[in-house]
């Protein structure tokens, strides 16, 4: 089809190769070391200054990281998050008024159990990372993906945001910080901004007791996961039919572990290392995955979906080229760890396909990444304050974003349901009909109990809840590709059952109220 109704010709001209001047465009005295974007050639020194400034400027502009606050850095070992770690380290060591004033810690999620690495490979990677992490002196939390099998259901609850500082304002927090004259040392025992007696603290203490993954920063030996948990994880991932869904599930579980670590170790913020290039791929990929409703949450600077733990993305202004050059020039070490999509074909998953597509388009049209990325600036965060009263059931069980499946009858979601109905036998002829989403509560769970025997903790209900109604559009697709829903970690299944019982109760109450009205 040609360009009916549309006119795209004006801004999509291929850019011509810029004329490269040999001098740095900033100081105009040193010879250039790299070109950042079309035409901007920087020398080594100016590039470093520019790079360092951008990190602080991003935090300064958004004013979300308060002085003295404990901030968890999610480091995967890859170039972007390693670069972020180096920026924080440098920002804290500086003895200037520009010094960063928060208290960092590091979390690394070891995903080797899902990506098919051997225990030896995983231990080697962890050892390499630890030597990098230890040089920073920050507390280190190493978490294995297998630990999802011992998470508490409360991970899936969005706690209300913790008011920080005197009146929650950035300025107030800064004043308070200055009054205290705190130097913001890296001592993990300090809790300068947590108001006493706040309910969240109780929850956190409670969670800390439940937690099985306490990893003191001074200890170097982490226990590798038990073979029972390893098998459970293997069973879960092998039951997911597509790489697209596997990648999606892995990301969800990783998020849960990070948030749980932050809560139990009383961090209020988590910094993620997503670069501008990464976010552009994520934005387009998420559109393809049906995650349009939560684009802003997934790609914006701040991600408030978990309530008390806010995720921030301070690396979102850097392209992967800038990061690669910086790391190379200034000796930032990173560790290559194979992921689910390492060495797979271009079309193996939606995420991977999108990455190849954006990369290729970027070569021909150099503004591709920045244009896509700018789109994210114009989007509304779906988890705004107006949604806070909507209650927890209105959020997706897995990704914690507000449900986007309640749209009206004229929608793609509804049209798909209609197609499904019309493509099947009429209900009257069909096999015994399901009794709606609550049918599972009455079912005997012999078969699923047998399948998962021995791999899960004792609080298993033995029933497999029908998750559909609790999930957003995109997470439904992931679960649709999962053959054995009962091999999901217990905290998810338990929370699902709980939510369904609650909604059933609510329905019953509603019926009762209606009858009252009638009478």
């Amino acid at each position, binding site marked *: 089809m040609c360009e009916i109704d549309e006119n795209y*010709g004006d801004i999509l001209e291929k850019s011509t190769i810029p004329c490269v001047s040999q001098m740095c465009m900033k100081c105009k005295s040193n010879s250039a070391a790299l070109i950042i974007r079309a035409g901007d050639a920087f020398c080594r020194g100016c590039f470093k200054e520019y790079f360092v400034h951008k990190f602080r400027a991003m935090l300064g502009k958004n004013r979300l990281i308060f002085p003295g606050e404990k901030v968890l850095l999610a480091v995967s070992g890859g170039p972007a998050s390693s670069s972020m770690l180096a920026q924080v380290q440098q920002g804290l060591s500086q003895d200037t008024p520009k010094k960063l004033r928060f208290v960092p810690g590091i979390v690394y999620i070891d995903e080797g159990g899902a990506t098919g690495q051997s225990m030896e490979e995983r231990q080697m990677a962890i050892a390499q990372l630890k030597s990098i992490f230890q040089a920073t002196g920050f507390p280190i939390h190493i978490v294995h993906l297998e630990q999802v099998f011992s998470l508490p259901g409360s991970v899936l609850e969005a706690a209300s945001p913790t008011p920080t500082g005197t009146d929650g304002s950035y300025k107030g927090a800064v004043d308070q910080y200055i009054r205290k004259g705190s130097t913001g040392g890296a001592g993990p025992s300090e809790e300068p901004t947590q108001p006493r007696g706040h309910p969240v603290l109780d929850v956190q203490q409670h969670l800390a007791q439940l937690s099985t993954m306490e990893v003191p920063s001074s200890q170097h030996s982490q226990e590798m996961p038990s073979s029972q948990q390893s098998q459970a994880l293997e069973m879960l991932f092998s039951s997911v039919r597509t790489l697209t869904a596997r990648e999606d599930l892995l990301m969800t579980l990783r998020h849960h572990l990070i948030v749980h670590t932050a809560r139990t170790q009383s961090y209020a913020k988590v910094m993620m290392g997503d670069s501008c290039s990464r976010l552009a791929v994520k934005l387009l990929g998420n559109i393809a995955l049906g995650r349009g409703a939560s684009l802003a949450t997934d790609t914006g600077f701040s991600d408030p979906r978990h309530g008390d733990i806010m995720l921030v993305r301070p690396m979102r202004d850097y392209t992967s080229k800038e990061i690669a050059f910086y790391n190379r020039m200034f000796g930032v070490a990173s560790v290559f760890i194979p992921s689910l999509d390492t060495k797979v074909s271009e079309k193996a998953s939606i995420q991977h396909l999108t990455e190849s597509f954006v990369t290729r388009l970027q070569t021909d049209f150099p503004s591709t990444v920045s244009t896509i990325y700018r789109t994210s600036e114009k989007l509304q965060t779906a988890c705004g304050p107006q949604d806070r009263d909507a209650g927890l059931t209105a959020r997706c069980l897995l990704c914690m974003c507000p449900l986007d499946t309640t749209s009206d009858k004229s929608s793609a979601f509804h049209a798909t349901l209609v197609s499904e109905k019309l493509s099947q036998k009429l209900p009257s002829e069909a096999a015994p009909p399901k009794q709606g989403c609550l049918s599972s509560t009455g079912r005997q769970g012999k078969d699923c109990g047998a399948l998962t025997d021995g791999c899960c903790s004792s609080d298993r209900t033995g029933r497999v809840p029908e998750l559909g109604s609790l999930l957003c559009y995109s997470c439904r697709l992931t679960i649709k590709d999962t053959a054995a829903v009962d091999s999901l970690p217990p905290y998810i299944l338990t929370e699902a059952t709980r939510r369904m019982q609650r909604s059933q109760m609510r329905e019953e109450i509603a019926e009762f109220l209606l009858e009252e009205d009638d009478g």
Partner: protein
Amino acid sequence: MPVVCSCCAQARAMLKRPKTGHSLCRECFFWAFEEEVHETIVSASLFTRGETVAIGASGGKDSTVLAHVLKVLNDRHHYGLKLLLLSVDEGITGYRDDSLETVRRNQRQYELPLKIVSYEELYGWTMDAIVKQVGLKNNCTFCGVFRRQALDRGAMMLKVDKICTGHNADDIAETVLMNVLRGDIARLRRCTAICTSGEGEGAVPRCKPLKYAYEKEIVLYAYFKRLDYFSTECIYSPNAYRGHARAFLKDLEAVRPSAIMDVIHSGENLSVREGVRMPVQGTCNRCGYISSQALCKSCMLLEGLNRGLPRLGIGKHHRLHGKILAQQPLTLDEERKLKAVDF
């Protein structure tokens, strides 16, 4: 071993549905396809009894299937619509004259009235003549903008209440991707709407009853029904960038067949930050058509053609609107920039 239809459980399945993964036989597929379009029409309240509805007919697969299905549904569900075919003759030798032949055959097969409006009578320019002046790089801009108005003007001539176009799910999803790639938030928000209501004078409401129909199913529907359609690419349509978006969408569909619907779902649920400036719709001071500027895109393109300055309508030259409305000449410097030389 042949797969059995998941609907009737008797006949042999002839296709796998990309949207749901079900396998259907020919008859169950026809029924499901038609009823889904019906559901789309009903749930979005696209029509009102007694309305005259023009089907934008190009002779291609989408509009041919649309005309066929609308006729079937109008009879089956007693919509009470007066349907007619409306075609635009862009004046492209070797492409449009052939496809218009197909539309004329459709007219006879479906017994629907047909009206053809030509660029030549509306604008005084055929696409062949335009290409001669502007070359092959921006001609799709002219064609697209002119076609949009041509359908409207044809519809007004015929006193039509609504226009239906054959845009299918793949087209909508592709447009969502295009608008993300070019960062056009205003279009991104609008492009998934099934109906554009006629704001301002001159615009007839349009709708897309095939919005949720996969291209694959449209082609198979036409194939199994032996519908007569024309399938040659427009000879002037090289557009590389849109080609990238389409190829990407087709690859997505190959990885996860529901992806096309998933992209549309994403587009339907985007929320745009308040305070992002959206263009205000007004009307063109020359022709009265809806426009966010003093002069509409079509009038600017036309002015450019007539002045021999084809770049006038391409890109943003809002500050020249005043001069053009006052019919003043441009300065030599302004003219130099708008000539076709470095197209």
